[in-house]
Protein backbone atom coordinates (compact mmCIF):
# COMPACT_ATOMS: atom_id res chain seq x y z
CA UNK A 1 0.00 0.00 0.00
CA UNK A 2 2.77 2.40 0.95
CA UNK A 3 4.41 1.93 -2.40
CA UNK A 4 1.19 2.66 -4.19
CA UNK A 5 0.67 5.87 -2.25
CA UNK A 6 4.24 6.85 -2.98
CA UNK A 7 3.60 6.19 -6.64
CA UNK A 8 0.52 8.40 -6.58
CA UNK A 9 2.42 11.16 -4.85
CA UNK A 10 5.13 11.03 -7.47
CA UNK A 11 2.51 11.04 -10.22
CA UNK A 12 0.72 14.00 -8.72
CA UNK A 13 3.93 15.93 -8.16
CA UNK A 14 4.79 15.36 -11.78
CA UNK A 15 1.43 16.70 -12.82
CA UNK A 16 1.87 19.68 -10.53
CA UNK A 17 5.16 20.70 -12.02
CA UNK A 18 3.68 20.16 -15.47
CA UNK A 19 0.87 22.61 -14.90
CA UNK A 20 2.71 25.22 -12.86
CA UNK A 21 2.38 28.45 -14.81
CA UNK A 22 4.65 31.45 -15.10
CA UNK A 23 4.72 34.22 -12.53
CA UNK A 24 4.23 37.15 -14.91
CA UNK A 25 0.53 36.52 -15.07
CA UNK A 26 -1.88 38.37 -12.86
CA UNK A 27 -4.31 35.80 -11.53
CA UNK A 28 -7.77 37.09 -10.75
CA UNK A 29 -10.36 34.96 -8.97
CA UNK A 30 -13.86 35.27 -10.36
CA UNK A 31 -17.05 33.33 -9.89
CA UNK A 32 -20.43 34.70 -10.86
CA UNK A 33 -21.77 36.71 -13.77
CA UNK A 34 -20.73 39.36 -14.76
CA UNK A 35 -17.20 39.25 -13.31
CA UNK A 36 -15.69 36.82 -15.87
CA UNK A 37 -17.22 38.95 -18.61
CA UNK A 38 -15.77 42.16 -17.12
CA UNK A 39 -12.29 40.64 -16.89
CA UNK A 40 -12.58 39.42 -20.49
CA UNK A 41 -13.56 42.92 -21.52
CA UNK A 42 -10.33 44.53 -20.29
CA UNK A 43 -8.02 41.57 -20.86
CA UNK A 44 -6.76 42.65 -24.27
CA UNK A 45 -6.24 46.26 -23.19
CA UNK A 46 -4.12 45.08 -20.27
CA UNK A 47 -2.08 42.88 -22.57
CA UNK A 48 -0.99 46.01 -24.45
CA UNK A 49 0.34 47.24 -21.08
CA UNK A 50 2.31 44.02 -20.74
CA UNK A 51 0.01 42.49 -18.15
CA UNK A 52 -1.32 39.01 -18.78
CA UNK A 53 -4.53 38.12 -16.98
CA UNK A 54 -5.56 34.65 -16.01
CA UNK A 55 -9.01 34.00 -14.61
CA UNK A 56 -9.28 31.53 -11.77
CA UNK A 57 -12.85 30.39 -11.72
CA UNK A 58 -14.16 28.75 -8.59
CA UNK A 59 -16.84 29.03 -5.93
CA UNK A 60 -16.80 32.34 -4.09
CA UNK A 61 -16.97 30.58 -0.72
CA UNK A 62 -13.48 29.16 -1.20
CA UNK A 63 -11.88 31.90 -3.32
CA UNK A 64 -10.38 33.82 -0.40
CA UNK A 65 -8.16 30.91 0.65
CA UNK A 66 -5.98 30.95 -2.50
CA UNK A 67 -5.79 34.74 -2.31
CA UNK A 68 -4.62 34.51 1.28
CA UNK A 69 -2.16 31.74 0.31
CA UNK A 70 -0.72 33.91 -2.45
CA UNK A 71 -1.80 31.63 -5.29
CA UNK A 72 -3.87 34.35 -6.88
CA UNK A 73 -3.40 38.12 -6.87
CA UNK A 74 -6.92 39.36 -6.37
CA UNK A 75 -10.54 38.37 -6.53
CA UNK A 76 -13.80 39.98 -7.55
CA UNK A 77 -16.41 38.13 -5.58
CA UNK A 78 -17.31 39.90 -2.35
CA UNK A 79 -18.18 42.93 -0.37
CA UNK A 80 -16.49 44.32 2.71
CA UNK A 81 -18.44 42.24 5.23
CA UNK A 82 -17.77 38.89 3.58
CA UNK A 83 -14.10 39.83 3.49
CA UNK A 84 -14.09 40.85 7.15
CA UNK A 85 -15.55 37.49 8.16
CA UNK A 86 -12.69 35.77 6.37
CA UNK A 87 -10.10 38.14 7.83
CA UNK A 88 -11.35 37.49 11.34
CA UNK A 89 -11.55 33.74 10.94
CA UNK A 90 -8.12 33.38 9.35
CA UNK A 91 -6.28 36.33 10.87
CA UNK A 92 -5.54 37.47 7.32
CA UNK A 93 -4.96 40.84 5.71
CA UNK A 94 -7.27 41.07 2.71
CA UNK A 95 -8.22 44.60 1.75
CA UNK A 96 -10.77 46.25 -0.53
CA UNK A 97 -8.77 47.58 -3.47
CA UNK A 98 -11.63 48.98 -5.54
CA UNK A 99 -15.44 48.79 -5.29
CA UNK A 100 -16.86 47.61 -8.62
CA UNK A 101 -20.63 47.78 -8.43
CA UNK A 102 -23.52 48.14 -6.05
CA UNK A 103 -25.94 45.26 -6.37
CA UNK A 104 -29.50 46.44 -6.39
CA UNK A 105 -31.58 45.06 -3.55
CA UNK A 106 -35.32 45.27 -3.56
CA UNK A 107 -38.64 44.49 -1.98
CA UNK A 108 -40.65 42.35 -4.41
CA UNK A 109 -44.36 41.82 -4.69
CA UNK A 110 -46.61 41.00 -7.59
CA UNK A 111 -49.77 41.38 -5.48
CA UNK A 112 -49.44 44.73 -3.75
CA UNK A 113 -49.04 47.96 -5.68
CA UNK A 114 -47.75 50.10 -2.87
CA UNK A 115 -46.31 49.79 0.61
CA UNK A 116 -49.64 50.91 2.09
CA UNK A 117 -51.45 47.92 0.56
CA UNK A 118 -49.45 45.38 2.55
CA UNK A 119 -51.98 43.88 4.98
CA UNK A 120 -51.40 42.96 8.58
CA UNK A 121 -49.59 39.65 9.15
CA UNK A 122 -48.20 39.16 5.65
CA UNK A 123 -45.41 36.60 5.28
CA UNK A 124 -42.19 38.08 3.95
CA UNK A 125 -39.27 36.02 2.60
CA UNK A 126 -35.89 37.43 3.56
CA UNK A 127 -32.29 36.18 3.14
CA UNK A 128 -31.17 33.94 5.98
CA UNK A 129 -27.42 34.56 6.03
CA UNK A 130 -25.77 36.84 8.56
CA UNK A 131 -24.81 39.45 5.98
CA UNK A 132 -27.88 39.76 3.82
CA UNK A 133 -30.50 39.45 6.56
CA UNK A 134 -29.27 42.67 8.25
CA UNK A 135 -29.27 44.35 4.85
CA UNK A 136 -32.89 43.27 4.34
CA UNK A 137 -33.83 44.56 7.79
CA UNK A 138 -32.10 47.88 7.03
CA UNK A 139 -34.16 48.13 3.85
CA UNK A 140 -37.41 47.43 5.73
CA UNK A 141 -36.39 49.97 8.34
CA UNK A 142 -35.73 52.57 5.64
CA UNK A 143 -39.15 51.84 4.12
CA UNK A 144 -40.64 52.28 7.62
CA UNK A 145 -42.25 48.84 7.58
CA UNK A 146 -40.37 47.93 10.75
CA UNK A 147 -38.03 49.81 13.03
CA UNK A 148 -34.75 48.47 14.29
CA UNK A 149 -33.26 49.16 17.70
CA UNK A 150 -31.14 52.30 17.66
CA UNK A 151 -27.52 51.76 16.72
CA UNK A 152 -27.77 48.31 15.13
CA UNK A 153 -27.35 48.08 11.41
CA UNK A 154 -25.05 45.65 9.60
CA UNK A 155 -25.18 43.12 12.42
CA UNK A 156 -28.92 43.28 13.00
CA UNK A 157 -30.86 40.07 13.62
CA UNK A 158 -34.59 39.38 13.78
CA UNK A 159 -34.34 39.98 17.55
CA UNK A 160 -33.33 43.59 16.92
CA UNK A 161 -36.71 44.47 15.43
CA UNK A 162 -38.12 46.96 17.89
CA UNK A 163 -41.50 47.48 16.36
CA UNK A 164 -43.32 45.63 13.60
CA UNK A 165 -46.58 47.55 13.11
CA UNK A 166 -47.75 45.38 10.17
CA UNK A 167 -46.91 42.20 12.07
CA UNK A 168 -44.86 40.91 9.13
CA UNK A 169 -44.03 37.23 9.51
CA UNK A 170 -40.37 36.67 8.62
CA UNK A 171 -39.39 33.55 6.69
CA UNK A 172 -35.61 33.42 6.21
CA UNK A 173 -34.45 31.50 3.13
CA UNK A 174 -31.13 31.06 1.35
CA UNK A 175 -30.53 33.50 -1.50
CA UNK A 176 -31.01 30.81 -4.11
CA UNK A 177 -34.35 29.51 -2.81
CA UNK A 178 -36.07 32.75 -1.80
CA UNK A 179 -37.49 33.25 -5.26
CA UNK A 180 -39.28 29.91 -5.49
CA UNK A 181 -40.51 30.15 -1.89
CA UNK A 182 -41.95 33.56 -2.74
CA UNK A 183 -43.71 32.28 -5.85
CA UNK A 184 -45.14 29.20 -4.19
CA UNK A 185 -46.65 31.47 -1.55
CA UNK A 186 -48.54 33.57 -4.07
CA UNK A 187 -45.73 36.04 -4.87
CA UNK A 188 -46.79 38.27 -2.00
CA UNK A 189 -43.66 39.71 -0.41
CA UNK A 190 -39.93 39.03 -0.54
CA UNK A 191 -36.62 40.82 -0.36
CA UNK A 192 -34.25 39.68 -3.08
CA UNK A 193 -31.36 40.65 -5.26
CA UNK A 194 -32.54 41.05 -8.87
CA UNK A 195 -29.80 38.56 -9.76
CA UNK A 196 -31.62 35.90 -7.77
CA UNK A 197 -35.14 36.98 -8.64
CA UNK A 198 -36.78 34.59 -11.02
CA UNK A 199 -40.18 34.42 -12.52
CA UNK A 200 -41.56 30.91 -12.42
CA UNK A 201 -39.06 29.91 -15.09
CA UNK A 202 -37.01 32.84 -16.21
CA UNK A 203 -34.75 35.47 -14.79
CA UNK A 204 -36.75 38.53 -13.73
CA UNK A 205 -34.84 41.27 -15.47
CA UNK A 206 -37.30 44.13 -15.19
CA UNK A 207 -38.84 45.93 -12.24
CA UNK A 208 -42.40 44.71 -12.87
CA UNK A 209 -42.57 43.06 -9.45
CA UNK A 210 -40.40 45.53 -7.58
CA UNK A 211 -42.18 47.45 -4.86
CA UNK A 212 -39.17 49.43 -3.70
CA UNK A 213 -35.43 49.52 -4.37
CA UNK A 214 -32.81 50.02 -1.71
CA UNK A 215 -31.52 53.56 -1.76
CA UNK A 216 -27.82 54.21 -2.19
CA UNK A 217 -26.45 55.98 0.88
CA UNK A 218 -23.32 55.85 3.00
CA UNK A 219 -24.45 52.66 4.69
CA UNK A 220 -25.66 50.72 1.65
CA UNK A 221 -22.59 51.75 -0.37
CA UNK A 222 -20.51 49.60 1.98
CA UNK A 223 -22.11 46.55 0.36
CA UNK A 224 -20.36 47.25 -2.94
CA UNK A 225 -18.99 44.14 -4.65
CA UNK A 226 -15.29 44.87 -4.79
CA UNK A 227 -11.94 43.94 -6.17
CA UNK A 228 -10.04 42.55 -3.17
CA UNK A 229 -6.30 42.00 -2.76
CA UNK A 230 -3.87 41.31 0.03
CA UNK A 231 -2.54 44.36 1.88
CA UNK A 232 0.98 43.47 0.76
CA UNK A 233 0.28 43.48 -2.98
CA UNK A 234 -2.14 46.38 -3.14
CA UNK A 235 0.65 48.70 -4.26
CA UNK A 236 1.93 46.32 -6.91
CA UNK A 237 1.99 48.48 -10.09
CA UNK A 238 0.25 45.67 -12.03
CA UNK A 239 -2.63 45.72 -9.55
CA UNK A 240 -2.84 49.49 -9.85
CA UNK A 241 -2.94 49.26 -13.65
CA UNK A 242 -5.61 46.58 -13.40
CA UNK A 243 -7.70 48.88 -11.20
CA UNK A 244 -7.21 51.71 -13.66
CA UNK A 245 -8.70 49.61 -16.47
CA UNK A 246 -11.33 48.10 -14.20
CA UNK A 247 -12.69 51.55 -13.47
CA UNK A 248 -12.56 52.73 -17.09
CA UNK A 249 -15.49 54.21 -18.97
CA UNK A 250 -15.57 51.05 -21.06
CA UNK A 251 -16.38 48.87 -18.05
CA UNK A 252 -18.86 51.40 -16.69
CA UNK A 253 -20.75 51.45 -19.98
CA UNK A 254 -20.69 47.67 -20.20
CA UNK A 255 -22.10 47.25 -16.69
CA UNK A 256 -24.81 49.82 -17.33
CA UNK A 257 -25.84 48.22 -20.59
CA UNK A 258 -25.63 44.55 -19.66
CA UNK A 259 -26.11 44.42 -15.92
CA UNK A 260 -27.93 47.70 -15.28
CA UNK A 261 -31.05 45.78 -14.27
CA UNK A 262 -29.21 44.38 -11.23
CA UNK A 263 -26.39 46.77 -10.40
CA UNK A 264 -24.97 50.26 -10.68
CA UNK A 265 -21.24 50.92 -11.15
CA UNK A 266 -19.44 51.91 -7.95
CA UNK A 267 -16.70 54.04 -9.52
Amino acid sequence: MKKIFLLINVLLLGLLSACASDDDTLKIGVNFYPMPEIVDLIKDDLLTQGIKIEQVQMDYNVLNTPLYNGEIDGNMIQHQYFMEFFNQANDSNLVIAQPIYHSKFALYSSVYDSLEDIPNGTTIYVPEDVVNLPRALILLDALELISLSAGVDVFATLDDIESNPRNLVFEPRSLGTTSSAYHSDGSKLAIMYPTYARDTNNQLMDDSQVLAYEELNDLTRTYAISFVTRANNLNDPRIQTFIEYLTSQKVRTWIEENYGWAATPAF
Partner: protein
Amino acid sequence: MIVLLNAATQSQLIKAAGETLNLLLMSALISLPIGTLIGMVLALYEKKVFKQSRWIVRLLSIVVSIIRSIPFVLLMVIIIPFSFNIFGTSIGFIPSLIALSFIGIATVARLVEQAIIDINPTLYDLAHSMGASKFQLFKDFIFIEARSSLILAFTSALVSLLAYSSVVYIIGGGGLGYTAIQIGYYSPVGQTLMWVSTLIMIVIVQLVQLIGNVLANYLNKKKRGF
Protein backbone atom coordinates in the same frame (compact mmCIF):
# COMPACT_ATOMS: atom_id res chain seq x y z
CA MET B 1 -28.04 23.07 -30.84
CA ILE B 2 -24.25 23.40 -30.99
CA VAL B 3 -24.52 25.46 -34.16
CA LEU B 4 -26.61 28.02 -32.26
CA LEU B 5 -23.65 28.85 -30.06
CA ASN B 6 -21.09 31.45 -30.98
CA ALA B 7 -17.41 30.63 -31.38
CA ALA B 8 -16.40 31.81 -27.91
CA THR B 9 -19.00 29.62 -26.25
CA GLN B 10 -18.01 26.68 -28.41
CA SER B 11 -14.37 26.93 -27.40
CA GLN B 12 -15.49 27.31 -23.78
CA LEU B 13 -17.46 24.07 -24.09
CA ILE B 14 -14.62 22.21 -25.78
CA LYS B 15 -12.25 23.34 -23.04
CA ALA B 16 -14.75 22.30 -20.36
CA ALA B 17 -15.33 18.90 -21.96
CA GLY B 18 -11.56 18.42 -22.10
CA GLU B 19 -11.23 19.28 -18.41
CA THR B 20 -14.01 16.87 -17.49
CA LEU B 21 -12.54 14.03 -19.54
CA ASN B 22 -9.08 14.71 -18.16
CA LEU B 23 -10.35 14.63 -14.58
CA LEU B 24 -12.39 11.53 -15.29
CA LEU B 25 -9.47 9.71 -16.88
CA MET B 26 -6.89 10.66 -14.27
CA SER B 27 -9.13 9.91 -11.31
CA ALA B 28 -10.10 6.60 -12.93
CA LEU B 29 -6.43 5.71 -13.41
CA ILE B 30 -5.86 6.29 -9.72
CA SER B 31 -9.05 4.93 -8.22
CA LEU B 32 -9.68 1.83 -10.34
CA PRO B 33 -6.49 -0.08 -9.36
CA ILE B 34 -6.46 1.02 -5.71
CA GLY B 35 -10.21 0.61 -5.33
CA THR B 36 -10.12 -2.85 -6.90
CA LEU B 37 -7.35 -3.88 -4.55
CA ILE B 38 -9.26 -2.67 -1.49
CA GLY B 39 -12.50 -4.20 -2.76
CA MET B 40 -10.78 -7.57 -3.27
CA VAL B 41 -9.32 -7.44 0.22
CA LEU B 42 -12.71 -6.57 1.68
CA ALA B 43 -14.52 -9.35 -0.18
CA LEU B 44 -11.93 -12.11 0.21
CA TYR B 45 -11.41 -11.57 3.92
CA GLU B 46 -15.17 -11.55 4.33
CA LYS B 47 -15.30 -14.83 2.41
CA LYS B 48 -12.74 -16.26 4.82
CA VAL B 49 -10.37 -17.03 1.97
CA PHE B 50 -7.75 -15.30 4.02
CA LYS B 51 -8.19 -15.60 7.71
CA GLN B 52 -5.55 -13.45 9.36
CA SER B 53 -6.13 -9.97 10.85
CA ARG B 54 -9.82 -9.52 10.13
CA TRP B 55 -9.91 -6.40 12.29
CA ILE B 56 -7.87 -4.57 9.66
CA VAL B 57 -10.57 -5.37 7.13
CA ARG B 58 -13.30 -4.14 9.44
CA LEU B 59 -11.36 -0.92 9.92
CA LEU B 60 -10.88 -0.59 6.16
CA SER B 61 -14.58 -1.14 5.62
CA ILE B 62 -15.43 1.58 8.13
CA VAL B 63 -13.01 4.01 6.45
CA VAL B 64 -14.55 3.29 3.03
CA SER B 65 -18.00 3.95 4.44
CA ILE B 66 -16.86 7.18 6.09
CA ILE B 67 -15.42 8.53 2.84
CA ARG B 68 -18.62 7.63 1.05
CA SER B 69 -20.74 9.35 3.67
CA ILE B 70 -18.96 12.72 3.72
CA PRO B 71 -20.96 15.09 1.51
CA PHE B 72 -18.78 15.43 -1.58
CA VAL B 73 -18.81 19.22 -1.64
CA LEU B 74 -17.58 19.15 1.94
CA LEU B 75 -14.93 16.57 1.10
CA MET B 76 -13.54 18.90 -1.56
CA VAL B 77 -13.38 21.80 0.87
CA ILE B 78 -11.77 19.65 3.58
CA ILE B 79 -9.11 18.65 1.07
CA ILE B 80 -8.08 22.26 0.34
CA PRO B 81 -5.65 22.74 3.28
CA PHE B 82 -4.39 19.17 2.84
CA SER B 83 -3.71 19.85 -0.83
CA PHE B 84 -2.05 23.18 -0.06
CA ASN B 85 0.28 21.68 2.52
CA ILE B 86 1.36 18.74 0.39
CA PHE B 87 1.20 20.00 -3.19
CA GLY B 88 1.34 23.74 -2.62
CA THR B 89 -1.91 24.45 -4.40
CA SER B 90 -5.42 24.92 -3.10
CA ILE B 91 -7.15 25.55 -6.41
CA GLY B 92 -7.88 23.78 -9.63
CA PHE B 93 -6.84 20.42 -10.96
CA ILE B 94 -4.81 18.94 -8.08
CA PRO B 95 -7.32 19.30 -5.22
CA SER B 96 -10.12 18.26 -7.60
CA LEU B 97 -8.20 15.16 -8.57
CA ILE B 98 -7.48 14.30 -4.93
CA ALA B 99 -11.14 14.66 -3.97
CA LEU B 100 -12.31 12.63 -6.97
CA SER B 101 -9.72 9.94 -6.28
CA PHE B 102 -10.81 9.60 -2.65
CA ILE B 103 -14.47 9.15 -3.53
CA GLY B 104 -13.52 7.04 -6.57
CA ILE B 105 -11.44 4.61 -4.52
CA ALA B 106 -14.23 4.22 -1.96
CA THR B 107 -16.90 3.72 -4.64
CA VAL B 108 -14.84 1.23 -6.65
CA ALA B 109 -13.92 -0.67 -3.48
CA ARG B 110 -17.57 -1.19 -2.54
CA LEU B 111 -18.66 -2.13 -6.05
CA VAL B 112 -15.78 -4.58 -6.51
CA GLU B 113 -16.51 -6.07 -3.09
CA GLN B 114 -20.11 -6.69 -4.17
CA ALA B 115 -19.03 -8.22 -7.48
CA ILE B 116 -16.65 -10.66 -5.75
CA ILE B 117 -19.07 -11.55 -2.96
CA ASP B 118 -21.66 -12.48 -5.59
CA ILE B 119 -19.50 -15.35 -6.83
CA ASN B 120 -20.96 -18.77 -6.13
CA PRO B 121 -19.28 -19.89 -2.87
CA THR B 122 -18.83 -23.48 -4.14
CA LEU B 123 -16.13 -22.04 -6.39
CA TYR B 124 -13.77 -21.75 -3.43
CA ASP B 125 -14.34 -25.41 -2.48
CA LEU B 126 -13.87 -26.43 -6.09
CA ALA B 127 -10.58 -24.55 -6.35
CA HIS B 128 -9.48 -25.99 -3.06
CA SER B 129 -10.32 -29.56 -4.09
CA MET B 130 -8.39 -29.07 -7.33
CA GLY B 131 -5.38 -28.06 -5.29
CA ALA B 132 -5.16 -24.50 -6.58
CA SER B 133 -2.72 -22.18 -4.89
CA LYS B 134 -3.96 -18.81 -3.65
CA PHE B 135 -2.62 -17.10 -6.76
CA GLN B 136 -4.24 -19.69 -9.03
CA LEU B 137 -7.50 -19.36 -7.11
CA PHE B 138 -7.32 -15.69 -7.85
CA LYS B 139 -6.22 -15.86 -11.48
CA ASP B 140 -8.12 -18.90 -12.75
CA PHE B 141 -11.26 -18.89 -10.63
CA ILE B 142 -12.22 -15.60 -8.99
CA PHE B 143 -11.03 -13.35 -11.80
CA ILE B 144 -12.61 -15.43 -14.57
CA GLU B 145 -15.85 -15.78 -12.69
CA ALA B 146 -16.16 -12.13 -11.72
CA ARG B 147 -14.61 -10.25 -14.65
CA SER B 148 -17.87 -9.41 -16.34
CA SER B 149 -19.41 -8.06 -13.13
CA LEU B 150 -16.16 -6.23 -12.44
CA ILE B 151 -16.42 -4.43 -15.78
CA LEU B 152 -19.99 -3.42 -14.93
CA ALA B 153 -18.80 -2.25 -11.51
CA PHE B 154 -16.09 -0.12 -13.15
CA THR B 155 -18.64 1.30 -15.58
CA SER B 156 -20.91 2.25 -12.74
CA ALA B 157 -17.98 3.79 -10.84
CA LEU B 158 -16.95 5.82 -13.89
CA VAL B 159 -20.44 7.23 -14.23
CA SER B 160 -20.40 8.14 -10.52
CA LEU B 161 -17.04 9.82 -10.98
CA LEU B 162 -18.44 11.81 -13.89
CA ALA B 163 -21.33 12.94 -11.72
CA TYR B 164 -18.97 13.91 -8.90
CA SER B 165 -16.68 15.71 -11.34
CA SER B 166 -19.51 18.06 -12.23
CA VAL B 167 -19.15 19.89 -8.91
CA VAL B 168 -15.37 20.31 -8.77
CA TYR B 169 -15.84 23.72 -10.37
CA ILE B 170 -16.43 24.83 -6.78
CA ILE B 171 -12.72 24.48 -6.05
CA GLY B 172 -11.64 25.65 -9.48
CA GLY B 173 -11.57 22.32 -11.29
CA GLY B 174 -13.67 23.65 -14.15
CA GLY B 175 -15.29 21.16 -16.45
CA LEU B 176 -18.80 20.76 -17.80
CA GLY B 177 -20.28 21.34 -14.34
CA TYR B 178 -18.84 24.84 -14.47
CA THR B 179 -20.37 25.64 -17.84
CA ALA B 180 -23.65 23.98 -16.91
CA ILE B 181 -24.14 25.49 -13.47
CA GLN B 182 -21.97 28.54 -12.91
CA ILE B 183 -22.03 30.20 -16.29
CA GLY B 184 -25.12 28.33 -17.45
CA TYR B 185 -27.76 28.14 -14.77
CA TYR B 186 -26.61 31.08 -12.63
CA SER B 187 -26.22 33.42 -15.57
CA PRO B 188 -29.29 35.20 -16.90
CA VAL B 189 -28.12 34.48 -20.44
CA GLY B 190 -26.80 30.97 -20.00
CA GLN B 191 -29.76 28.67 -20.66
CA THR B 192 -28.39 27.27 -23.93
CA LEU B 193 -24.97 26.68 -22.41
CA MET B 194 -26.60 24.84 -19.51
CA TRP B 195 -28.50 22.48 -21.75
CA VAL B 196 -25.65 21.86 -24.19
CA SER B 197 -23.29 21.04 -21.30
CA THR B 198 -25.85 18.62 -19.91
CA LEU B 199 -26.27 17.08 -23.33
CA ILE B 200 -22.52 16.46 -23.60
CA MET B 201 -22.59 14.83 -20.15
CA ILE B 202 -25.42 12.56 -21.30
CA VAL B 203 -23.46 11.57 -24.38
CA ILE B 204 -20.36 10.75 -22.29
CA VAL B 205 -22.39 8.60 -19.89
CA GLN B 206 -24.09 6.78 -22.77
CA LEU B 207 -20.73 6.03 -24.36
CA VAL B 208 -19.18 4.79 -21.12
CA GLN B 209 -22.20 2.62 -20.39
CA LEU B 210 -22.30 1.23 -23.94
CA ILE B 211 -18.63 0.29 -23.90
CA GLY B 212 -19.02 -1.22 -20.43
CA ASN B 213 -22.03 -3.30 -21.45
CA VAL B 214 -20.43 -4.58 -24.66
CA LEU B 215 -17.21 -5.49 -22.87
CA ALA B 216 -19.02 -7.17 -19.99
CA ASN B 217 -21.13 -9.15 -22.41
CA TYR B 218 -18.06 -10.24 -24.31
CA LEU B 219 -16.30 -11.36 -21.13
CA ASN B 220 -19.32 -13.08 -19.64
CA LYS B 221 -18.27 -16.70 -19.13
CA LYS B 222 -21.82 -17.95 -18.71
CA LYS B 223 -22.99 -16.56 -22.05
CA ARG B 224 -19.91 -17.45 -24.06
CA GLY B 225 -19.65 -20.90 -22.62
CA PHE B 226 -15.95 -21.11 -21.80
